[in-house]
């Protein structure tokens, strides 16, 4: 997957590293126009052909999920691993990802009995016409009432370091979404 060359300039990498670390509770960065346009269009086409399956557990989540082979191949290219290693200043061997699709009535819920281990989350958005009013924002909470809410928009990568006690959820998608779908390619790098 071809990354926008702007993100390989030393000056930009330094800025990204600084911004990532500036939020001490939930270190995070949002990178717009992340993939080159042609690559982004290919990814979108690939996603529309993927075989999604409904995953529903009413007290925990509702969405569709698929794991097409190009997702993990793309996440583990030398280019992608080099980029993430520079930003995170961390050796990364392998990334495992999936694509989740959120439509009307989909969500994820926090649960005390299903707590994720600390790690680094990657969210990449593959939807062009998603509006904040539909819901579907990715929200990180630290257990003290503080939270970080991000609307994922087209061709945007969000990298979040989830420290101990920090959990995430995807807000309920309401009827204003109608038939639109929010496609999120996501992966977690364990701490």
């Amino acid at each position, binding site marked *: 997957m071809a990354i926008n060359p702007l993100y390989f300039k030393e000056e930009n990498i330094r800025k990204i590293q600084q911004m990532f670390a500036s939020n001490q509770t939930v270190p995070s960065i949002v990178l717009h126009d992340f993939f080159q346009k042609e690559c982004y269009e290919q990814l979108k086409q690939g996603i529309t052909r993927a075989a999604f399956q409904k995953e529903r*557990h*009413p*007290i925990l989540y509702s969405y569709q999920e698929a794991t097409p082979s190009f997702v993990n191949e793309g996440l583990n290219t030398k280019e992608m691993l080099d980029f993430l290693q520079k930003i995170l200043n961390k050796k990364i061997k392998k990334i495992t990802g999936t694509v989740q699709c959120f439509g009307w009535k989909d*969500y994820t*819920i926090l649960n005390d009995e299903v707590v994720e281990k600390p790690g680094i989350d990657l969210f990449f958005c593959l939807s062009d016409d998603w509006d904040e009013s539909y*819901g579907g924002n990715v929200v990180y909470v630290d257990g003290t009432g503080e939270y970080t809410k991000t609307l994922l928009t087209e061709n945007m990568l969000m990298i979040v370091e989830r420290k101990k006690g920090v959990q995430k*959820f995807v*807000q*309920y998608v309401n009827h204003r979404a109608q038939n639109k779908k929010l496609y999120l390619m996501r992966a977690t790098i364990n701490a």
Partner: protein
Amino acid sequence: MSKKISEWITKYAEKNTIVALKKQFTSAKPYPHLVLSNFFNPKKSVEILKALVQEPMEEKEADLFKFMQTKDLVGTNNKILKEFRAFLCSDEFVSFMEHLTGLKLKRGVIDMHGTLYQDTDFLLCHDDQLEGRKIAFLFYLSNLKEKDGGSLNLFNSKNKMPTTVVKKIIPQFNTFTFFEVSPVSFHEVEEVITDVQRIAIGGWFHGD
């Protein structure tokens, strides 16, 4: 029937009615519950609605819900809301609820809020379990249609996990609904999808 009960409740407090309702409550599926229409004195219900819409509400939003809610009405200064809360906590009404449910309930202790659900508001599936809660109740103060959304949906369960919605309760003015809080009392409020206002008072009776 005590004077207090007859002042507040329309037709449900006769001895034979209570026996029949208890059977209905305990055998209700997917878990014990009742839906009692035209429950409270209609004149008082209208007064309660008028008073409730004057109470300050704040937006509540989290992973599980989005709606407007008052503070606990224990702090209200409004006369009719105070009287209503006092009635629900009273020995007479709590005894009535004990007869209907067969559960032992505390007198004088109740949690009670006003809620307002508008377009896109929702409450996702959960069981309501919190220490002491025995009966969850809802007093509906709006008339909704199925097309509005906003129904109270009750879930079947398997191995103490919710599976599918098997009962939908569409809010109707002056309907009093309640269910036993248990590890399987899974329910949700379906998203409101029109410009209707879904107004209700809800809360919990506690056990000893």
